């Protein structure tokens, strides 16, 4: 476990990374092709791209769950070759253990890292307080609402003080209101320790509202199409408000230009008719 933020930790580099999957019948499918990307320590990086372009694969490789077929992924100049310490992952679906209380779920991270049981529970209690779940320690995950489960997952991911936080469409299952509340809470939690964040999403507004840097991935096989720096000042405040600022709209227009072609290509490939709006106008 690291002690607070570190400027050395959390420096992410993808160099010529490709990932091919082999299906059981022996067909190969290229998910990612020649990805080059650098994310500086403490940066909040959003990755957007059409469905199935391999954006989640960047996260699983960085977490060490999968190896690249070519190229290297490095964290602070160390090649990732397995599960790496200091990396936390927040999945799209809940990854809380349904048979454990919220408290013991959050305490899993420290207890795996040899923190004495009682101290781990104290840490977990503290983190539940930070994410606003005091009083729900003994509840089972199914007894919480979707938003509360996300907060518990965030606490479970942040309790290990990661230098890198990977998030794979973490809020996509939530309703719109809960989602914007969670985005704001994520930002204020991120400000505390400033881990490097890779945030995969298909929601461009969410990406611009949260990130320092938005990476657009092409339709599969995915590769980096363009990288945009988001120069909106921090702290940003509520997403509902900043999304009407002129600079926000300008960036949105710019990035959407890059993203649109890729989305349409994926659409066409799936055999769906190109949306009438796009062709008729």
């Amino acid at each position, binding site marked *: 476990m690291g002690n607070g933020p570190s400027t050395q930790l959390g420096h992410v580099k993808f160099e010529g990374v490709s990932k091919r999957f082999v299906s059981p019948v022996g067909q190969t499918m290229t998910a990612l092709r020649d990805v080059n990307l650098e994310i500086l320590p403490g940066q909040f990086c959003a990755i957007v791209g059409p469905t199935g372009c391999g954006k989640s694969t960047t996260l699983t490789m960085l977490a060490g769950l999968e190896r690249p077929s070519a190229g290297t992924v490095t964290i602070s100049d160390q090649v990732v070759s397995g599960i790496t310490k200091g990396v936390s992952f927040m999945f799209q679906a809940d*990854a809380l253990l349904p*048979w454990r209380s919220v408290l013991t779920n959050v305490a*899993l991270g420290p207890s*795996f890292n040899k923190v004495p049981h009682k101290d781990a529970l104290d840490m977990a209690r503290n983190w539940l307080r930070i994410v606003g779940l005091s009083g729900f320690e003994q509840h089972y995950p199914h007894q919480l609402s979707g938003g509360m489960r996300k907060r518990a997952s965030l606490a479970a991911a942040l309790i290990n003080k990661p230098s890198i936080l990977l998030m794979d469409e973490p809020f996509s299952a939530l309703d719109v209101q809960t989602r914007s509340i969670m985005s704001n809470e994520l930002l204020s939690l991120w400000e505390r320790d400033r881990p490097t964040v890779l945030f995969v999403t298909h929601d461009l507004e969410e990406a611009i509202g949260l990130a320092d840097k938005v990476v657009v991935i092409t339709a599969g096989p995915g590769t980096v199409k363009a990288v945009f720096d988001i120069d909106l000042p921090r702290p940003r405040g509520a997403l509902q408000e900043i999304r009407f600022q002129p600079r926000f709209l300008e960036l949105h227009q710019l990035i959407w230009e890059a993203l649109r072609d890729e989305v349409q290509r994926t659409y066409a490939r799936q055999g769906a008719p190109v949306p009438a709006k796009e062709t008729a106008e």
Partner: protein
Amino acid sequence: MTDTTVSAGFRAAARRRRLLVLLGQAVILVGFIGTWQIASDTGFVDPLFFGSPTGVVARLADWFVNGTAYGSFWFQIFVTLEEAAIGFVVGVFSGIFMGILLGQVDYLSDVMNPYIKFLNAIPRIVLGSIFVMWLGLGLAAKAILAAVLVFFVVFFNAYQGVRSVDPNLVANIRILGGSRADVIRQVIIPSAMTWIVASLHVALGFSIIGAIVGEILGAQHGLGLVIKTAQNTFDSDGVFGCMFVIGMIVLGVEVLMTRIEKRLLAWRKPSSAENIQDV
């Protein structure tokens, strides 16, 4: 209507329904036993083959008071239950162990697959004869037969349970720093537990079957031996009496097991059928 009158009306309706169900159950019980008794008394069925409720009660009373040819009736019950319990425990634990092992190690699972299918296909009850030949008339042969029957039920469920573990949960534990043992302890076993617990009810019945069949094949004590003796002397009241006693015992253990199941699976979301009633 206000909420209170609605809920009062609902409670009254629920009570009425419970009473109706009980009444229906009582009608079936009295009807069945009454028909049996009358059919037997009037000679419509031959009491020698079909016995009669009063005959069964008399036979059981005699056994409980005066004992059987092999000692007290309580002792026969104890012997059978002991064999079944040992078989149950051994079968359940070995089934869970093998299920998790093969569920985790693909190579082993692929290698063992045809053999397990074959072992499952053969009538394992016949193994009882082998066990009696090997191990004699004592407890071991019956306990092993019961364990073999229980093993396969639990094994298949445990295996399936391990195979259907959510890969996200496993990935999450590993990223949080959990070892392979942590993954097994925190994810695989609890997750497979739903499947395993579901198999325990069937396994319980099988453990009793194993013990009794083992005793019928050869024993010096136990309910199976009592049944076999009753069969040889055309004592149908005795056979029905033993069936009844075994049924009551299994019912009792089932109640206990349902309680344990509820505790083990307390974390589960109650299904909507359990807590929502259509008013």
